[in-house]
């Protein structure tokens, strides 16, 4: 008979990879990598892309893709800067400006959801259009110029620490943990996987695809809005080009994190680890003074290899033996 099946912990391999990378870097950089200042830097550097990647995880699990994430990052930061800058006349309070920035982001998500679900426009196309249009909107709001004069408390957030970790990193961690719990432990999360695995079967299971799709794209966009705010505290300004091409690192993080572009597969934890791996390569490369062009090649190779190993071992019906021993089976027939 079938042996009791132990739950696979897909993220284990990623954790092992990160540990190996960190140990390696700590050794070759003579401990500079593992200094607490650098680890602090690393998680803060990873935080903004990390939040965008968590947003992208939702979308990729639905089987879609969101190319407009970077533009939403730019939009939210720019809206916030416009609302609060002391150089401009509006001078809104920080909390209210945050709410408005996130509402603007949510609106983008809603339009994406409508175009994709009701308009039947493929996600790639719908969000490609949205990416361009929203970036145009950002340029329009700002006249293509940077906005400075943000409130002091807001700017201070990016360098603030809490329990030894930067506030930006905490923001990321809290978002990722909540996203992970929602995906795993709520009906909403289960609907996400159901729709991503088989939309027609999900519909027959009584799941309201329309509302859920709207919701996923809105959640994704709001998370990008938060990332936009994080970026503008880091930049201490609203920058019209902020967030440009962020979709690429986000997609890479999600895919390295084990998600499948065909939908139905992926976790917040995997994505967080994926984002950490990418940032570790960049940070480590800088520390080791590796040629930046070689670093680009390495990151490209890692994205493809991650997906390759994933599908390779899945298709062969076995797990990579290099990481821990394969599951032993008793011949108890």
């Amino acid at each position, binding site marked *: 008979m079938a042996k009791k099946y132990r739950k696979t912990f897909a993220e284990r391999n990623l954790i092992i990879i990160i540990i190996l990378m960190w140990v390696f870097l700590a050794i070759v*950089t003579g401990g*500079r*990598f593992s*200094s607490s*200042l*650098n680890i602090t*830097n690393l998680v803060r*550097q990873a935080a*903004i892309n990390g939040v965008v990647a968590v947003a992208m995880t939702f979308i990729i699990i639905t089987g879609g893709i969101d190319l407009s994430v970077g533009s939403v990052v730019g939009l939210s930061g720019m809206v916030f800067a416009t609302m609060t800058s002391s*150089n401009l006349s509006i001078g809104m309070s920080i909390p209210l400006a945050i709410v408005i920035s996130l509402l603007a982001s949510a609106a983008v998500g809603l339009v994406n959801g409508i175009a994709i679900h009701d308009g039947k426009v493929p996600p790639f196309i719908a969000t490609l259009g949205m990416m361009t249009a929203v*970036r*145009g909107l950002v*340029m329009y709001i700002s*006249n*293509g*110029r*940077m*906005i*400075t*004069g943000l409130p002091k408390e807001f700017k201070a957030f*990016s*360098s603030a620490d809490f329990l030894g970790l930067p506030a930006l990193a905490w923001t990321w961690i809290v978002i990722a943990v909540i996203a992970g719990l929602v995906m795993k432990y709520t009906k909403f999360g289960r609907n996400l996987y159901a729709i991503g695995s088989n939309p027609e079967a999900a519909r027959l299971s009584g799941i309201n695809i329309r509302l859920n799709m709207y919701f996923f794209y809105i959640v994704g966009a709001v998370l990008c809005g938060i990332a936009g705010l994080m*970026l503008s505290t*880091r*930049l*201490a*300004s609203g*920058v*019209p*080009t*902020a967030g*440009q*091409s962020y979709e690429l690192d986000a997609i890479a993080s999600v895919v390295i994190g084990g998600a499948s572009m065909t939908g139905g597969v992926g976790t917040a934890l995997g994505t967080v680890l994926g984002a950490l791996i990418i940032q570790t390569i*960049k*940070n480590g490369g*800088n*520390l*080791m*003074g590796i*040629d*930046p*062009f070689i670093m680009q090649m390495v990151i490209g190779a890692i994205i493809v290899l991650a997906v390759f190993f994933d599908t390779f071992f899945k298709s062969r019906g076995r797990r990579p033996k290099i990481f821990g021993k394969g599951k032993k089976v008793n011949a108890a027939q």
Partner: protein
Amino acid sequence: MKKFLVLLVLALVAVSTFAAYEIAFIVKATDSDFWQYTIVGAKNAEYDLDGAINVTVYGPPSESDIDQQIAILENVVSTMPDAIVMSSTSSDAPSAILNDAYEAGIPIVLIDNFVYDTGYTAFLATDNAKGGSLAADLLVKNLEDRGIALEGKIGLISAMAGVQVLVDRDDGFKARMAEIAPDLEILPTRYIDNDIAKGANATEDLLIANNDIVGFFADNNHSGDGVARVIEEQGLGEKVIAVAYDSDPLEVEAVKSGALKGLIVQDPHGMGYKGVMFAFMALKGEAFPSYFDTGVYVITPDVVDESTGILDPFTRQRY
């Protein structure tokens, strides 16, 4: 449709301002302060000439859209303007189109970036290598003033790989450094995709990797913003001397706060203004130099307050 509307508007404008010269002003990108400044210059020239010319501005959203800029140029040429003032992103791609227009008698004024294999009326640019060497001078002077020995390392943060203007700046900087401070090692260049956050990341990483860094050179405004942000956050203003190229509001703030010790600033307003003026002079048959260095300014903390017009040409907007 859109093109048609543009043509219609152009035609109307042409009729209403009878005999005014049509001057097409094509920028590399519309999404950055620098090109917005050149536009201010061009529009100021239009204002000053008081009805003698009409300046129409064109440009792709981003500097990476080279083919879009070419398409724009083609469309502009087909409307047969009286003169074209262009800052081309590519030094080769528009050659044939520009040359045809030039042969057809349209004065061509190149600004900022040269284009090979085409006839042209005038070329106005900044000597970027010279700007780089001025940055080196400024950096070393600041070190000397503080009594910091001219040894250790210098970080070089470049906005993007493969952009000629930036390569010239970096080379100019490196060459001058080798002359005046040969013991300062310049670290391998870090490229940041013109992304401020990535600029900050690279700066943080270089500071961790090398505890003997005494200075940074950032070769445009976004790389300068990134460097400044880290120096500000870590309070390194007196230990690490950072000098950057270009100007934007964040850089100006950084100079005021001391995070940056100086900016090498071109004269985008002058480029736009003089570019249009040269085109006008060509149409009028007046004489002017075929090459003109629009020059660079060195903005240090002590002059920053008086340099608003250079740092933010929008304040010079007359129209």
